[in-house]
């Protein structure tokens, strides 16, 4: 049974503004001169992107993340995925994780098909399991002859299709999807939603971050509204969307 639990997690990341912050020589000069030379690496600022978030998702639950740009949605997804380790708090995961996050992690010079094989291998698949996952993704993404072209020729919607198809073909228990899925057309999004529901019916979990009510309602039954790295509201998807929309209206953003 899949389970995803975050206990009071925090993520703080450094704000990099100058080259001297990233220089080993500047850091050495700074520490040897007690901070008088080299710009001082101690002046690096840290931003708390996620601050004290706790949640526990159990099998079959589908979560939708909403919040303004920079509110911490993507950081929260990457924390859930384990790509970022929390600077405080704990993360407990039961089940395998598949994700479609920003950047997609594709090699732009390889063809779509070669990328699919590479991703499958990176996830430890081989032999018939690899072939099965790739065949499944090929069928699902409907990219047809484009799969023989280098990925750098793809549109963002096509990249989203490929990544989503691969992430779900792995039969992961927990699906984490960033807003990149929004680049897909409506037909694909509906297909993606059916797929996510199907995964959740096999005792999986899905989490999607989006600015689109259509995507949020389609993918999720629970909503989480995050602002300034803190949870504002969590509950049934329609209630949370309503609260969030009301907030956006109150500050004049819609």
């Amino acid at each position, binding site marked *: 049974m899949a389970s995803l639990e975050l206990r009071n997690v*925090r993520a*703080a*990341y*450094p*704000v*990099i503004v100058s*080259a001297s912050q*990233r*220089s*080993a*020589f500047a*850091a050495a000069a700074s520490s040897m001169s007690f901070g008088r030379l080299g710009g001082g690496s*101690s*002046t*690096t*600022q*840290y*931003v*708390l*992107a996620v*601050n004290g978030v706790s949640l526990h998702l159990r099998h079959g639950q589908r979560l939708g993340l909403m919040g303004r740009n*920079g509110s911490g949605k993507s950081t929260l997804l*990457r924390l859930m*995925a*384990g*790509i*970022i*380790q*929390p*600077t*405080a708090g*704990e993360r407990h995961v039961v089940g395998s*994780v598949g*994700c479609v*996050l*920003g*950047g*997609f*992690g*594709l*090699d732009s*010079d390889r063809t779509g098909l070669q990328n699919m094989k*590479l*991703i499958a*291998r*990176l*996830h*430890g698949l*081989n032999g018939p399991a690899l072939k099965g996952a790739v065949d499944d993704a090929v069928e699902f993404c409907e990219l047809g002859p484009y799969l023989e072209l280098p990925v750098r020729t793809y549109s963002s919607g096509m990249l989203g299709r490929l*990544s989503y198809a691969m992430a779900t073909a792995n039969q992961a228990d927990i699906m984490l999807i960033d807003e990149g899925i929004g680049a897909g057309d409506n037909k694909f999004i509906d297909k993606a939603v059916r797929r996510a529901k199907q995964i959740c019916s096999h005792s999986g979990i899905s989490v999607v971050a989006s600015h689109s009510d259509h995507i949020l309602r389609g993918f999720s039954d629970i909503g989480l509204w995050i602002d*300034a*790295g*803190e949870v504002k509201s969590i509950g049934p998807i329609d209630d949370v969307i309503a609260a969030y929309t009301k907030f956006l209206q109150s500050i004049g953003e819609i």
Partner: protein
Amino acid sequence: MTAHSTRAPAVAAHTLQNSLHEILRALMSWRIWGIAAMDDIAGRYRRTILGPLWITLGQAGFIAGLYLLREKFAASNPHYLTYLAASLPTWGLLASFVVDGSNSLVKAKGFIDAYPIPMAIHSVRSVAASYVNYAHLLVVYVVVAAFEGTIHVALVGVAPGLLITMVFGVGAALLLGPLGARFRDLGPASAMGAGLMFVLTPVFWVPGRQQIESPLVMYNPFYYLLEVVRAPLIGEAVAPLVWLIASLIALATLTAGLIVYVRMRPQVVYWL
């Protein structure tokens, strides 16, 4: 965004444990980094007709060039060709541990950002890729050694030598990968350092007794790491002191690598 602070956040003990566990998982995922490493080398030559044969040809050309200048570097050595064919690839291996190690995580940024697989896989993958490259370079050695008839029973000593360099390589990748992500001048600096050490270390020149006792060689860690592999390849026994010092260097590098990786792991993703 909220709450700016100027202090790096402290790292919880269980996070350190996770990082250590991640290294173990990465080392055990040999199927993943093995294939990725072969792919790295093949990818470098994907658009060429000769493919990875370029590595072998380049090496042969370099050895031939230095051999033409043999009177400058090794007037008295009758097997200078074998010496070069053993020495240059082994140096290339050590240098790539340092240079590729510094870039291993930066280069893998796209994958690290996208997939929750143990990050240390990318470090181990760069070490494995160095060995794949090394195997291509050794083709020239095999041809030359067979031609000069210098293959000797001492060749079995190459196995422990390679094991020592492997420990050094993994240590260097774990040490320099996170540091190279944090400090972006480490990549160029290590490439420059490797170029300098190539000249200072007896790679293409054959050291006389006097030179071996000079501080430049005696206090040069690369000399010992090079010697444990090269000596067996040219049919010589490795001095016990060289074994000992090379092993200590490798273990010290691995220890430093584990400490740095485990401590920096939680923050590295942000610096990529």
